[in-house]
């Protein structure tokens, strides 16, 4: 079994210790949705400073570039208009 996370329901493999941002980038997924302002969400600084890669995990928004991958993790783009649960 390859460990995988799910981006919008699509399985994405990851390596042990990898962040969600890194796994998505390696899978060629760079467009992480839109912020409420209309700005594209995407990894920019890669180290948790710019907040540009916020994605939704469960009820909360979190930086993809910092979030460690765990098998079965479900993440999706922010639906927009909400800043946090």
């Amino acid at each position, binding site marked *: 079994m390859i460990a995988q996370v799910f981006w919008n329901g699509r399985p994405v493999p990851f*390596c*042990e*210790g*990898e*962040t969600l941002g*890194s796994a998505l*980038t*390696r899978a*060629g997924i*760079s*467009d*992480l949705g839109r*912020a409420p*302002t*209309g*700005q*594209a969400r*995407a*990894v*920019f*600084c*890669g*180290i*948790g*400073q*710019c*907040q*540009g890669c*916020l994605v939704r*995990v*469960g*009820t*909360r*928004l*979190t930086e993809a*570039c*910092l*979030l*460690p991958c*765990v098998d*079965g*993790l*479900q993440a999706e783009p922010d639906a927009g208009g909400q800043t*946090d*649960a």
Partner: protein
Amino acid sequence: MRGDRLMRDSRVLVIGAGLAGLAAAVEIAGAGLPVLVVDQAQAPGGAVHRQPLPGVRSIASGMQRRRWTRLMAQINAQAERIEIRCNTRFGGMDYTGDALLTGDGRALMQPRALVLATGARERVQPRPGWTLPCVTTAGAIQAELKTTAHPPYGRVLLAGSGPLLLAVAAELVRLGRAPVAVIEAGHPFSHPLSALRLPASYLIEAAGYLLRVKAAGVPVLTGAHVLAITPSADGLVVRVNTPRGDRSFGADRIGLHDGIAPNDAGLPVDGPVPVLRLGDCREALGARAALADGRAGGGRLAAQLLGRAAPDPSADLDLQRQAQRRLGAIYAHDGLTRLSDLPSDTVLCRCENRTLADLRALGSNPGARGLRLDGRFGMGPCQGRFCAEWVGRLSTPAGLPLPHIGSNRWPSRPIPISDLVDPSAEGLEP
């Protein structure tokens, strides 16, 4: 926050497990004081010594590896007094001295002293198209290389200014993905005499990078600036202004970098316990200085806490400061003057999607209050980390001090309410 997790703590809290933070921890623990080091990443290392994922080979140079091994040996020798908690974020310290930690090491604690060693952030000048997906900082590319030893997908272009561009370019070459071009705003190769006055270690490192990049046939354009990045049918197109006219490059990934600055947005300045900033977090002077500053600052803090005489200041720091000043002169360019020539719809504030036109609508010299309240610059989640410098320069008449847009507030970073009210909320993250 549940009361049972609030504890007065005899430990010194160090934020950042990079060179400065760990060097400080070694000194503090060496004086007999217990230390808790936290880092938001998955492993110690910071930006410079970011560690490869388990099972991935390290791409660090021999010099880097030796420096890290030496530091970790010193940490391990003090293991009973140093605890390192990763995947843990610092939310700030309030006026009562409560420090908020979230993530794996979540706690509300009252440390004996606070050492901020959060390193540097990258400066990235706004350019049309810099908000597009696949346009990242050059540092983000470097972090990927260091953790995965795997180059990014497709054609990579590096642009901006400073020694990091060539370092990343050389690493890409070594991993078999030579960048399509390096666009350097400065003229670093036309200062041979001043370059020779750099410390030998700087020269050897830089020469190694340059040789590898040149040998791979990578065009290194100097005095060149990115005019715009636009999406195309197969990736991105980068239009570049060079002293010999404009050129275009196709790319799938673009790394931008215009130098480094302290990563100090939102951090406390002082508190009821000693607060110390060390390394790039205080003054962005690079890895060599961070190690020296961490060591000296840790020794100073330990002496202060124990009522001992302060140790002699380190001469290392001045040497590194001189070297960085010289590097700054070598890479000097007119990029800043180009800011005001940007197209008016260029996004300045990435978070709030605010443009140069939005800034100009505020009139001349709106000041920090006008910029924030009327313009919403620096009000988004990044709190001005990526726009404050440019917005300040563009809105302030020459000769006046730049407004301080980012503020030192609590919390220092966005924190989900669930992290504060219910510790079990962490269960939401599978």
